């Protein structure tokens, strides 16, 4: 009995605690079965047609501030609490809302980021903004994209194609 207790306290419990810590440290990836692709949209005058997920992360984290044509990047985000924004926070930032806010404030504070993203309430607002601002980049559900903007391939895939990694749960 005493040996069992020793084994429990010396090995099993610490191992469980460590396993729980490691498991909890992994980012939670929600892969909803009923998910819709999230399209990354830019102004039609933007020379880019595709982008890697890594570069998209750099853009959205404020680590890259210029397009290849030298134009300044203007980030567009949806309102806090929207599924689209949460999908972007999870996929591109790997953080929740509070950590995202703190991270961006710090990036502005250190001078790394030029400024915080524009926050728009609706997909129409995003499309209009991207249409009007040549350096803008935003995201909407693939079904909401219209001809006023250009959809970027991400890692060589368009929304809906196999291997496309940006998804948002169905409404």
């Amino acid at each position: 009995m005493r040996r069992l207790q020793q084994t429990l306290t010396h090995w099993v419990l610490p191992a469980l605690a460590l396993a729980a810590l490691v498991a909890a440290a992994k980012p939670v990836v929600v892969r909803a079965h009923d998910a819709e692709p999230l399209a990354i949209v830019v102004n039609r005058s933007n020379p880019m047609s595709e982008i890697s997920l890594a570069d998209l992360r750099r853009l959205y984290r404020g680590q890259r501030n210029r397009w290849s044509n030298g134009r300044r990047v203007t980030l567009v985000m949806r309102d806090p609490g929207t599924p689209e924004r949460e999908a972007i926070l999870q996929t591109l930032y790997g953080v929740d809302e509070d950590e995202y806010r703190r991270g961006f404030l710090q990036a502005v504070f250190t001078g790394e980021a030029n400024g915080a993203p524009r926050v728009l309430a609706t997909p129409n607002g995003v499309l209009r903004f991207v249409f009007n601002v040549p350096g803008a980049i935003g995201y909407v559900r693939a079904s909401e994209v219209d001809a006023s903007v250009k959809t970027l391939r991400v890692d060589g895939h368009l929304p809906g194609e196999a291997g496309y990694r940006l998804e948002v749960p169905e409404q």
Partner: protein
Amino acid sequence: MRDSEPALGAQPPEPPEAPLDLLMRLAEAPAADATARPGHRASEDEHADHEEHAHDGLRSADEKASGDDPDAPFAPQFKIHLFADMKYAAVDTLGSRNGFSLGQFDLFGRSDLSDAMSVIAEATLTALPRNTFSAHLERLLLTYSPTDVFAASVGRYHTGIGYYNTAYHHGTWFQTATGRPLMYNIDGDIGVIPIHTLGVSTTGAVPSGSLGLHYLAEVGSGRAGQASAAAATQPALNDNNTLSLNGALWIRPDAIDGLQLGVSVYHDRLTFADTSKALDDETIAAAHIIYKTDVLELMTEGMVMRHDPRGAVAATDSHGYYAQASRRFGSVRPYARMDYLDIPRTDPLFAFLGRRFGPSVGVRYDFQPLAALKLQTSHLNQTTRPNMNRFDAQVSFMF
């Protein structure tokens, strides 16, 4: 690869509006409404639909200022953020007093002057033990950043030595712990490393694919040797004609999101008020490994600071490092840090510090998105003073 689709503005314009209609619409429309399509007359529902919200409370420049709206008149906007902290500290050393104290009041502002030029300014008011305040212009930087690979700043800035000194400035709200590591500690304007420099700083991303290589090169006035043993950066007059040089490289590899590895080397020549002392070459080499994710924060840095008097006296090597780990559980983040700083007794600047090291453990509770309570207990072994235990309760916030 250039896109061949029609460019913006290629649509045929609608017939011109009647002057009265146009005036009414302009009066109702928000300024710089980039969400409205040219020539498109939005309905009331659509206006509500694309209502623009605040930029997470931290928008620093709108598209007019940044030049994204080429037709808009230029109008710089200075965005201000304030940081502050207050704390209760209990220290067990003889003669010390326990009590509440104001920390630092930090005024930070940023403005875009054009698409590629911006200004950062940061001033602090710090409460001193003598119940007075000291005021410092911590940063004043004019930055020109035409591309991602090159940005040049001129002014007063945090020296790019290691990681912590540029990642965390004076707003304690950003920092996990109540204060900076020993090797980066600032007492007023005094630090073991030259915390600030006045000069020119250039930085940028080196095209390196998935490696994420960045560089930094700085030339400045360096620290003043004449004013005091560990004096501040020189805001107006240099001690000598030798400028400080600093170079740094760091990588953020795509393979491990949140990882940053870097090195930096700093060099300056110090001139002492005591003319019997020889000129002193100061070299500081630092390296860091940082891993930060949503929940985990693992940081470790080390530095060697060599003071090499030009003469018969032997050079001294001081060492410092810290290791900090924290993990977030919702709004609560427990953390631990080990600090170490060892200054030889023959060091011309910091011999009075001696060797000091010890652990700190604490917990940070973000009770509001922009406000945090930190409880921290620390033990410090010191060779030049009695060992010390202390407890700090700090509230830090931004607004």
